[in-house]
């Protein structure tokens, strides 16, 4: 059996690293674009220092907007399939920078997806503002992921024409200034197309798949969708999976991880504005093969919003939740005959589907 790894063809596909003036960008607004390179910074702390020469976007004028475009390209243009996401990373330059943005209601930071090669058909998604709490605010100045399911219409902001999620050809980011104060600066780093990453492999001995395999894979591309606090608590902002129904034999065994699937965009509480998805989209799918074995020991699963927990595939495989697991707040909750819940607890969940 091969060592555990993320299955090729699943997970993130880099659309563009927004570093060093990628081609296709245009300044179509009243602000300015700056390529930030820390080698040129002197004195430090000016609010324009950054770690890797990311693209900086500045607006200073009252209610002005800065827009620029990137051609998404054919390989990454189709978002029509289930669980396919457009993901990008951004951060205001500082806490002061957050305060200089317009409110969520006035589209402080938003992404607009255009389809079919023109600027007629679009949907926009707000992801920041001076009245919002970005997911990274407890850790100021950290890039945060914005996860967009373009197929759903629950959390979208503006619309135009007839949106075609099979042909997203342009992406436009816009930041709106509060109207008073100094320039607001927002950085953007990378853009991705994402389908759920699937962990496979494990040799049944010392190198079974573990949670760290997910983290390692994400780290290779600065794909910061797993936010950690403490040693064991992780906020998971994308759907993930283990096993591929036996195409690759898979063993997974890990202890004590606490998984919180991210809350969804909420314009009322504004606590989370970066996950544009619907309930039961995020979650964990466990797709057993005949000889697969997945063991969760003392894990905690939870979300403020409903998520899915699905054990499916070949019932000769085994998936055990044991040694004090807590499965809480599940929406779509499906267990086939290979699943076992041992000395564990299920609470605040929707109806359990057994098949």
């Amino acid at each position: 059996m091969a060592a555990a790894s993320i299955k090729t063809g699943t997970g993130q596909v880099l659309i563009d690293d927004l570093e060093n003036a990628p081609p296709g960008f245009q300044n179509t607004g009243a602000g300015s674009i700056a390529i930030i390179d820390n080698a040129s910074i002197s004195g430090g702390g000016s609010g324009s220092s950054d770690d890797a020469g990311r693209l900086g976007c500045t607006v200073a004028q009252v209610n002005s907007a800065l827009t620029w475009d990137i051609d998404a390209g054919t390989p990454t243009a189709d978002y029509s399939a289930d669980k396919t996401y457009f993901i990008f990373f951004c951060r205001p330059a500082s806490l002061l920078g957050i305060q200089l943005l317009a409110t969520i209601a006035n589209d402080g930071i938003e992404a607009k997806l255009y389809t079919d090669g023109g600027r007629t058909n679009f949907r926009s998604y707000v992801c920041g503002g001076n009245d919002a709490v970005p997911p990274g605010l407890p850790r100021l100045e950290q890039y945060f992921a914005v996860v967009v399911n373009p197929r759903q219409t629950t959390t979208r902001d503006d619309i135009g024409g007839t949106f075609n999620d099979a042909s997203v050809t342009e992406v436009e980011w816009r930041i709106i200034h509060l109207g008073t104060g100094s320039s607001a600066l927002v950085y953007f780093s990378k853009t991705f197309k994402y389908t759920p990453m699937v962990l496979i492999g494990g040799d049944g001995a010392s190198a079974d798949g573990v949670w760290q395999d997910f983290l390692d894979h994400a780290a290779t591309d600065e794909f910061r969708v797993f936010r950690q606090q403490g040693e064991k608590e992780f906020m998971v902002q994308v759907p993930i999976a283990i096993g591929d129904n036996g195409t690759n034999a898979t063993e997974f065994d890990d202890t004590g991880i606490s998984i919180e699937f991210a809350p969804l965009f909420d314009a009322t509480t504004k606590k989370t504005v970066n996950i544009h998805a619907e309930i039961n989209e995020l979650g964990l799918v466990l797709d057993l093969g005949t000889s697969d074995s997945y063991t969760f020991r003392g894990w905690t699963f939870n979300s403020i919003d409903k998520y899915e927990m699905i054990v499916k595939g070949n019932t000769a495989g085994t998936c055990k939740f044991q040694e004090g697991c807590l499965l809480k707040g599940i929406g779509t909750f499906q267990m086939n005959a290979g699943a076992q819940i041992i000395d564990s607890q299920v609470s605040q969940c929707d109806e359990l589907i057994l098949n």
Partner: protein
Amino acid sequence: MAAAAIKSGTGTIVENLWIATTGLTETGSGSITTRLNQGLNAAQSAVSSDSANSTETPMAVRDSFTTQDLSGDRMVVIHFVNAVYAILDIYQTVANAGIEIRLHSGATPNVNYRSFIVGGRNMLPIAARESYIAVVINADQTTTYNGDTGTFDSSDVQHIEILWVRDTAVKTSLPTIFLIQRQFFLDPYLLIGGTTPDAAATFQDLLDYEPNGGASGNIATDGLARLFEEQGDQVFVKAPIGIGDGGTNTVRFDDSGKILEFPIQAGVVTNNENMHILENDLGLEVNLGASDTVDLRNYSFGGETKYYLKVIGNTSGRCTFTSCQIKKTGTFEFKAGAEFIDSIITNCDEMILN
């Protein structure tokens, strides 16, 4: 019954060591500049420490303050933040004392002190190199320290010193900026009050509490304190907390669904240096009064360094854990007023019943 609140005199700043107002001195070869509002912290003043120093000579910021007895539960808490390039390009590694805090006892600094390494260029505090870092120190322990000079007396601390060492192999001329946001001495937070079951105290009352008052008075939104971090229902707790005071103030607490994790001790895993604590320094203590009612529903407790979970006080009070998950406690103590319903207890130390 009073509204829920943090009990006066607990969880508060014993002394708030704003460097800009408390005896800033330079002890190294660089220069120190007081800077207000660098944009990193719009709500409070901050201080930076700049240096063009190209050698591995420490420079220091030192505070003088009222003598502190740190021999008990009182902790030293310091929040700081760096520009990311400073961490990447300027500091030495943790092994080479990149960022160090010294606590000096006695009136004369640099004679008797205890040091703690709290960061460096290879330290990645919880996947957030650009973030504020809360350093919490139990000064009365020598397990995680970096050594003593002279005879350190934890009951007579009169100065705090923050030092850094440049990695000259990486950068020799770029100045750094070191923003020290907050320093204070912390006694355990203690939540009291709550009225009817419909207006009971919740964990949010702890999260809402901001030591010494912030811009909005809200830990979660004003970006100041870093003793509680939230993501969804998960809360990372870096301070000792309590509910109830044994009946002096009546408590009605009722809350559901929080997933609490207490931090790991410095030095146990690579590059995690900010929590200089011992096992059972942090945790939750419910101190019941005769008419207190505490309901914890669907809570999860965990921590990589042993933490305490106690229900003490008057056994006429009631503390109920319903559908809870309790993992890896250290000191695990329960009075007769405690009750577990449909809950899981796993990987814990011996339970003390009294």
